[in-house]
């Protein structure tokens, strides 16, 4: 099994789905149990990765290669490095959490719902594992269909609008990205005489400057829509608000990361010149900063609980893209870690909204207030989620944001100065949200006598809480895992970066020592 570990991880949810389809749809509990078993199996199968991953090795690990469409040079090629390791683990954990959280929320068409979720799992895992660009693209698009159904069938009142908007936005981006991929494919053939989509091989390309720019923007549109970066973010609030809780969780925690992951895995290493071009970096940093501030300010204004969390995602993802385009080790590893953190914290926030929504069937903030009195346990867990998202030290969000800001500061002090406002606004909208929903007296009689969280609901949060604490208190293993791949990417985009750093340290250190001595 170990030879094909990644394939097993990739296809376990799909096998689970195939078996699920055999269960008659009237047996709802059997379907629920099986879906949970399949998700848990998906997680357990992925667990050996954590222990067997060699953080000192450079390059990809657990690689598997098979021929798929030789006529086009397409391979079945999977493999992971430290960055994808974290994303894969995030996906399998969130899969368990999301599926467990749907137990009561989904009463209709249960079988189809869980089938879509398991299909979604395979699609997302495929995105994070593929090392063949064609295969990556196939998984990238496959993911859209189950998500369309999850929003469109089990969503809120405006679900149809939201689901098709989500679908079309991403599809349009994807189609342009495909053209960029094909451009690389032909350029490779032009230079080396063979056709391949293999990412490691494509890195050998020397693209003409105009073409590199062109491809960069094609990729940019595909990835930026997915992230979503500032002008392309409009699908996100709609999709989040209308999606069922578990759909929002997966959408925010994992699917948005496909975009940032795309930047890190493809844009930077394949198009290093364009990625380091001063103008392009400037544009992307400005868009990221606008995203940070705009997302935070709009969050402040929201009357809808879920929409607030949705816009906070825009702000947080702005940090992630800013970290990427700081193009230094701190910025990049901070960005990857923050992606993980956002997955954990925002996932929790959406689950928090879901808990209240299941009881009251409204998301209006003004309908709530004083929930801490009736649901003390819920209030504590919500406080934890909120603080983890706000970046309280000793919790996960702090580590990520701090590292990104450090990286941004190294790149440009102005960026850091603007970005840091996002942290302040972030604390503001989150605390205010908490105050409006949990604190004070109960003003709405409907909130009296709400049952506190059940054991199952606590179990949904438990893994995320543990994970958040782990990252917050002892993030070293994460930085260890990220060190090699991040260093490789930085070296690729900015050749000689590390040597220069070393040289600078060598000259500065004695001077500083002298200063201290004086």
């Amino acid at each position, binding site marked *: 099994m170990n030879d094909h570990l990644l394939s097993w991880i990739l296809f376990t949810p799909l096998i689970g789905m195939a078996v699920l389809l055999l269960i008659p749809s009237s047996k709802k509990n059997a379907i629920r149990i099986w879906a949970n078993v399949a998700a848990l199996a998906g997680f357990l199968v992925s667990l050996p990765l954590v222990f067997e991953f060699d953080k000192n090795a450079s390059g990809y690990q657990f690689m598997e290669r098979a021929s*798929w*469409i030789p*006529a*086009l040079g397409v391979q079945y090629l999977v493999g992971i490095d430290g960055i994808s390791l974290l994303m894969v683990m995030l996906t399998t954990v969130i899969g368990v959490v999301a599926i467990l959280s749907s137990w009561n929320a989904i009463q209709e068409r249960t079988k189809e719902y869980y089938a879509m979720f398991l299909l979604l799992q395979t699609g997302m895992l495929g995105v994070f594992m593929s090392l063949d660009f064609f295969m990556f*693209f196939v998984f990238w*698009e496959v993911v859209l*269909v189950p998500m369309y*159904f999850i929003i469109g069938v089990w969503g809120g009142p405006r679900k149809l609008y939201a689901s098709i908007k989500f679908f079309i936005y991403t*599809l349009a981006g994807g189609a342009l990205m495909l*053209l960029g991929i094909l451009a690389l494919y032909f350029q490779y053939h032009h230079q080396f005489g063979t056709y391949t989509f293999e990412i490691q091989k494509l890195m050998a390309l020397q693209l003409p400057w105009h073409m590199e720019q062109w491809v960069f923007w094609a990729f940019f549109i595909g990835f930026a829509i997915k992230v979503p970066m500032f002008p392309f973010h409009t699908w996100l609030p709609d999709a989040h608000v209308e999606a069922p809780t578990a759909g929002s969780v997966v959408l925010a925690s994992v699917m948005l990361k496909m975009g940032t992951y795309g930047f890190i895995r493809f844009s930077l290493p394949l198009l290093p010149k364009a990625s380091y071009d001063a103008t392009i970096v400037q544009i992307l940093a400005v868009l990221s900063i606008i995203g940070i501030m705009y997302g935070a300010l709009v969050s402040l204004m929201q009357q809808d609980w879920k929409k607030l969390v949705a816009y906070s995602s825009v702000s947080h993802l702005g940090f992630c893209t800013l970290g990427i385009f700081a193009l230094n080790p701190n910025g990049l590893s901070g960005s990857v870690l923050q992606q993980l953190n956002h997955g954990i914290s925002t996932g929790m926030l959406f689950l928090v909204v879901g808990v209240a929504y299941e009881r009251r069937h409204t998301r209006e903030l003004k309908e709530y207030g004083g929930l801490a009195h009736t649901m003390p346990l819920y209030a504590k867990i919500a406080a934890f989620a909120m603080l983890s998202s706000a970046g309280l030290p000793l919790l996960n969000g702090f580590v990520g944001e701090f590292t990104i800001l450090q990286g941004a500061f190294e790149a440009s002090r102005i960026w850091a100065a603007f970005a840091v406002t996002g942290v302040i606004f972030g604390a503001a909208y989150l605390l205010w949200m908490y105050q409006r929903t949990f604190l004070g007296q109960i003003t709405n009689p409907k909130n009296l006598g709400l049952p506190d969280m059940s054991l199952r609901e606590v179990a949904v949060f438990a893994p995320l809480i543990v994970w958040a604490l782990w990252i917050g208190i002892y993030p070293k293993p994460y930085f260890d895992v990220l060190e090699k791949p991040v260093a490789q990417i930085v070296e690729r985009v900015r050749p000689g970066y590390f040597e220069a750093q070393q040289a600078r340290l060598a000259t500065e250190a004695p001077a500083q020592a002298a200063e201290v001595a004086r």
Partner: protein
Amino acid sequence: MNLGQYYTAQDQFVLVPAIMLAMFACAVFLFDFLLFPKASQRKWLLAFVAFGVAMAGGGLYRQWAYLAKYGLTEITAFGGTLTVDGFSIFFNAMFLAATLVVGIMSYKYLEIEGEHHGEYYGLILLANCGMFFLAAGSDLITLFIGLELMALCFYILVGFLRGDKRSNEAALKYLILGAFSSGFLVYGFSVMYGLAGSTRLADVATAIAMRDAWDPLVFLALGTTAVGLLFKVAAVPFHMWAPDAYEGAPTAITGYLSVASKAASFAFLVRLLMGPLASARDVWAPLLSVVAILTMTVGNLAAITQSNIKRLLAYSSISHAGYILLGVIAGNSTGIQGVLVYLLVYTFMNLGAFAVITALRRRDIVGEDIDDLAGLMHKSPGYAVLMLIFMLSLAGIPPTAGFIGKYYIFLALIETGHFYLAAIGALYVAVAAYYYFRVVKSMFTSEATDKEPVASSFGLRVALGVTGVMTLLVGIFPEPFLRLAQTSVLLIR
């Protein structure tokens, strides 16, 4: 006088598929009322269709094996008026598959419509016979006769629902506009003959190559033939007949028309543009680019507002023609492969979609509105899931066959540096997704408007099975099909 010189063994070998199709068509016409006086028995006529297709397929297979065995690129017959090569065999195999699928999905529908006549099966075989000459012809006269044979059969088939006003109107519109376009075409041919003094494509090619690409006579020939053929493939601005004809025709025939007739006309178009008119490429490529962009624009935008699903698929079919034209514009070997692959996947996915719509026609329910699909997931989950697969495929979403088709077209465009055309095509993918997903939305998220179960029959289920499996198979394991297209294109010229 030795007749052997006019009809050699090689002529016979090349002509076998057409002979078989014509023979079985005539057999249907002859024996229909003798053997099957009652309408309910007429589905057994399908045995004739199946037999005819099988025999023609056997003939094709022998041609293919012969080419492969001796490493030939082509076999010519009748003094060069017919040419069998990989390209023609590929198309003919596709036509045969389409004919068979259309045949087996029709009988229940025709019974419900009360128009179950034997001629139907004879006419689809005869139309296929015309398509054979379109794919294999290498002489202007042969090609024209093939085109007319196919078109005449279709004029009748479109109007086959005699009691239905829409069907009659559709047939009449199609006939008048079709005859008009044939006139254009044949005028273009006469100019070509005037230029070359011969009707062989090869001679015409030589004659045109000797002239300047912008020579007015060449331009006249090019323009008139292009108008004629663009009409047949329903490219904008010659698409006006398509929505009406598609809506009025019996549903299975709409499928046949949108798939086989279109593929045959594209085979013809590719032969002409890559053969006699290849030297005028600088003239037709930009013109065709404009036509392709217009076709995608009008097809996609008009489809958005349709509420009748047959009209919706008519406009979708127009937009697909735009994509296929992009492959022709790219014009290199990848582009032509793209045309072949696209038409192959389009044949299966579109016939599949029409098979589902055929099943919606029940007694007293016309079943042609998107709303008639509502709640299909509850009523007949199997049909709904298959329709989902077909819609995803038409929208070009992996891992379905439609993606491979679109992918190949983009591949060719990028390879030849047509970046803007590729970008426009890519953006229309998103527009198209919108209206295909209206269908999906209706099936999966709305409540059913009626309780009447879908009109299923054994043949229809087989047709759905075949098209569904092919749509997924080409999407997930495209390798053998791509190889087939590659070899077929390698074998022309």
